[in-house]
């Protein structure tokens, strides 16, 4: 009886959840109508505009932004790809003009060591600290006195 009432509710909830899940897969970014000669170029384009930051809009990459400069730079990336330039050349073209700022994936240099290796360093430091504490608390365990042992035996034998 109750199952019959609950059934439609379950159905509704699953539909809703499914809608929420699939909506995350929809790309809401701006749509360009670029034609690519092959899949590899298309993938490279998508990768590049994903990793390059829009200079104007701070927290968006080129792929997501619809600002004028992002549209222009996407066009530039596309043109350079068709010219047969390498990914490195395209990234360098952007860095020469807009600085390291445009890289969402910063280059590994002395200035970015902390950024790249900091998290690993923190994990190691944290691990060492935990190890020290664990070892310390282990050594502190003291054997029960005769009186405590007798009490414990009483409780266990009850």
């Amino acid at each position: 009886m109750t199952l019959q009432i609950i059934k439609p509710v379950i159905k509704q909830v699953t539909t809703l959840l499914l809608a929420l899940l699939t909506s995350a897969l929809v790309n809401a970014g701006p749509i360009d109508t670029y034609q690519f000669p092959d899949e590899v170029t298309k993938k490279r384009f998508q990768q590049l505009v994903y990793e390059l930051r829009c200079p104007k809009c701070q927290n968006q990459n080129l792929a997501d932004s619809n600002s004028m400069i992002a549209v222009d730079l996407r066009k530039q990336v596309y043109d350079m790809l068709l010219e047969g330039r390498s990914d490195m050349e395209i990234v360098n073209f952007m860095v020469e003009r807009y600085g390291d700022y445009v890289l969402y994936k910063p280059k590994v240099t002395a200035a970015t060591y902390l950024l790249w290796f900091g998290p690993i360093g923190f994990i190691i430091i944290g691990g060492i600290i935990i190890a020290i504490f664990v070892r310390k608390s282990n050594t502190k365990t003291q054997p029960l006195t005769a009186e405590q042992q007798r009490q414990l035996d009483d409780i266990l034998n009850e």
Partner: protein
Amino acid sequence: MSKVIRFLPLILFVLLAILLFRGLSLDPTAMPSALEGKAFPEFQLTELQDENKTLSKDDFADGIKLVNVWATWCPGCKYEHPFLLKIARDKRFALYGVNYKDARDDALQWLEQYNNPFQFTMFDVDGKLGMDLGVYGAPETFVVDHNNRIRKRFAGILDEAVWQQQFEPLLLQLQQEVQDSSNNTRG
């Protein structure tokens, strides 16, 4: 030792608080220019007022130059314009305009209506020079020295305060450099 450990969270908290508090006062839109110290990019553009005339770097005057990137679609440019008219009277440098991704008729009408502060204006309709300059919006102003090197890039609206703080000291320094180099060639 155990006392130090007890205060460790507090110390870490204070350090983090200082770091984050400093971050609050940083300007997130300030972007270091990749072009400072580099040569002004080559270009071939028509003059705004005369589409048959081609302008290039050779048309720049010898001394210090200011290059202002503007457009009629840019509200900040309208706000900035009276200040440009004011500094255009300054004899220490030549002021040039780059009309960035604009329509020629609109731009001409703008200069007609608000007066023209520029020695000449390059008509950069598809933003190529803008891209080579690392322009990502308008207005932007570049200071170019007597060797045609970019010495400063300023993104945003020029006004008296910015001028006094950032441009005056640089102009003095550049004038000194011009003087030094002319002394060297003479001596």
